């Protein structure tokens, strides 16, 4: 019952995370919130799967992490974009707009 939750392909999730962090450094929970906001509650991923994605992105050097203090004085791990990450985001955004334009064309003409 209810809305179908589409599965996010791995690459798309990475892109969303990078975009979310481009607005400023944030901890994992906050990233989840931002993505939620950005996609207007439609793409509600199983929250925990965000973390393997974050770790993978960190391993690729696109974000870096350090421990900090949250707004409500708790210890949290903050992530922020690196320069390589910013570059990667631009690349991914360009790819995505090409892809969606192409798909849109096909869908309109069909």
């Amino acid at each position, binding site marked *: 019952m209810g809305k179908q939750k589409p599965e996010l392909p791995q690459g798309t999730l990475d892109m969303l995370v990078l975009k979310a962090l481009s607005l400023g450094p944030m901890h994992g929970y906050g990233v989840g919130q931002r993505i939620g906001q950005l996609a207007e509650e439609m793409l509600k991923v199983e929250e925990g799967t965000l973390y393997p*994605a974050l770790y993978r992105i960190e391993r690729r050097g696109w974000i870096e992490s350090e421990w900090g203090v949250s707004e409500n004085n708790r210890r949290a791990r903050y992530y922020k974009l690196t320069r390589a990450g910013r570059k990667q985001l631009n690349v991914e955004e360009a790819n995505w707009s090409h892809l969606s334009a192409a798909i849109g064309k096909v869908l309109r003409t069909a």
Partner: protein
Amino acid sequence: MEWLSNLAMRMRALRRGDDVHREIAEEWQFHIEQRTEENIRRGMSPEEARCQAVQHFGNSGYIKDLSWDERGGGLAETIWQDLRFGYRQLRKSPGFTCVALLSLALGIGANAMIFSLISTILLRPLPITHPERVFAVHQIRQRNLSAMQSMSYPNYKDVRDRNEVLSGLAVFRFAPMSVSHNGSSERMWGYLVSGNYFEVLGVEAFLGRTFTPEEDRGVNAHPVVVVSYGCWQRRFGADPKVVGSSILVNGHSFTLIGVTKPEFSGTENLFKPEFWVPSMMQPWIEPNFSGMESRSDGQWFAFGRLKSGVNASQAQAQLNGVAQQLAKEHPEVNEGMGFLLTPPGLVVPSLRNAMIAFSGALLLTVALVLLIACTNLASLLLARASSRRKEIAVRLAIGATRIRLARQLLTESVLLSVTGGLLGLGLGVFLVRIVLASIPATDVGITLDLRLDWRVVCFVGSLALLTGIGFGLIPALQASRPDLVASLQENAAGSRRRVRVRNVLVTMQLALSLVLLITAGLTVRSLQHAELLGPGFNPQHALIMSVDVGLQGYDQNKGQKFYEQLVEHVRALPGVQSAAWANSLPLSVGSDLNDVYPEGEARPAAGDILEAITKSVGPDYFAAAGTPLVAGREFTENDKEGGPHVAVINETFAQTFWPGQNAVGKRFHDGGETLVEVVGVARNGKYQSYGEDPKLAVFFSLAQRYSSSATLIARTKDNPKSAIASVRNEVHLLDANLPVYDVKTLKEHLQLPLFPLHAAAAAVGSFGLVALILAAIGIYGVMAYSVSQRTQEIGIRMALGARTIDVWGMVLRHGIGITVAGMVLGLLCAFGLARVVTNLLYGVSATDPSTFILISILLAIVALMACVIPARRATRVDPVIAIKNL
């Protein structure tokens, strides 16, 4: 850089796995608490809020595994697991492990040793500043590249002053000197160097100082000496006060002004004299040598430092331009002159090229040995993998990926090869020690600084890794093929194919071993031949002894008298058949060369004129040396100073200038305009090295061409060693203070020029032996495996009435088949290689039948012996048990 952060995270996971786990837990804790609070804000109760938060988070076990993997833990953990598993597996089969480690150690150890030779002689840079900018500058004759390749002093000065590409050009020469300190004197080898020698090299002293260019101005004006660190320790007891004191060199007083650093000993790799003297002191060091004024003579070796921004080929081109100028200005000497730049260390380009060829050949040989070892290992691993078929099939069935499985098998083989590599490194150290101990000692002080430096260790490391991956890859891929159903059953067809693969491998091994052994056999025969027949004189029953009367202060008159008296006394000794003097023996280090051309012809241009090896010998020399004369006569007492100039030439000389005629009585020009008459023609021999092309040689009369140092050669009736004491005694009677050196039998004298051949024979011989052992192990392995696979078949046959003989026949047929195939393949390859190897052999054809036959028989015997044990085991098969396993 992506891989860097990747590596960093993986290393952290490897070393601080617990910390990483804790961090993940903490991070998620925070997340869940935030979500809980959010839920409470939305109106849920605390328990509900928390419950919903946890649920919303997701399947934490699965996510945790994923996270651990992404944090880098996955790979590190599995590699560690694989290593431990591999180690246990290897321990479970000690036989296999021992054989594998032995094969690897032998193969890699041999490679390590040869590579350390290459590293020392060709790769290691000199301990000077920016060694890559320093090059040896050789003066060559462009149309006659095998001619002498060193510089004269006047040419040096011109090149030094006129070139635009070198920031400094220096020269040096080797010279023996008699050095006295605190009463004891000794003949040592030293360098005569130009004043800028240390400056060009950029070398500073360890104690005291080195020369300044000013100290090389003015003949005999600055008697100063710099000694090497080793010399300072050995001869002067590492006494710091010796700096500034005076020592006697050739009877003259010199001041010792400095000691070089421990690792510095000149620019040469093989020959390391112990002290340096400015070139202007030359008259005191080499009183009979006109080394500074003559533009045509001079064995000065030069090296230079490139100016910044200039590379070697540009420098060579510009220097050749200078050469052309000099050729125009002094055509009689410099016509056809050119310059060649090479990295320093091996004196002359011809030696360097020879060393490169030699090391290359050796490296190829040990690579072959390693290949054989790896083939062994690949086939052993194949067998092992097939015996673990069931285990692998079960793993695949419960979900292991093929990559994971192959990685585990590969880890095992890399573990094996790295351990083998370490053992090989140890073996290499041991082999290096043996080689160093076997280098014949010479008066000339040839040294080889062989050691296993970082280059060798890196080489061994990468070799070990590559072999591990190389021989492990195919078995790993093959074994991990997910052919589950077939694997879980007994698969006879598969095992037959495996046996075929191993057959091929062993056949290849046998072929390679045969090739190596034949090469070894040919080299050994070459050596025998060279020893007995090569040199052109008879090395048996003769002793030699050298003196340097010039260093002792004798003038020419005194020297000649000494020579005459001594040789007379020695001839009178019982047990001595004949005795004579020579200024140097054939196949000694260093030789004199003169330009020669026949009477009646115009003097050829300097670039075309032929050189002859020159020796001065006394009467009876050819009898004493055992060199037959094919025409004419020996020198006599009448061939002395004031008489007509006479010479004995060798056959090549005679055939070059007067082909088909009798050379006796003909005359030729020697060096300047002197006409010399030929009075005898001697049988050809070797004069500089065993590998040389035929050379012109001319022997002058020692009475007419005095030499202040000479070697006495005495042919004895019996063992020459017994006559040594009495000959020494005769010297002592004539002059108690005259030092004699290089006292040995003529056979021992040949040890140095024969050393390369000896070394090659020893090397190839031992590698061939190793190859044989490895091949025997290979055959044994295949035969044993095949028998174990055919156990059922054998059982059935025996049950049906086969006798022991029949079973033997079955097994041996297999073995003989492999052996014959391998030998045929090997013989074909050996024949194929014959053309390549011909140049390296003396007096032995590269397809010498007796060598081929003997070695083939040897290999066949060893191969068949290796088949015997499996064959016996086959006959012990109990048919009842074999059939039960059907």
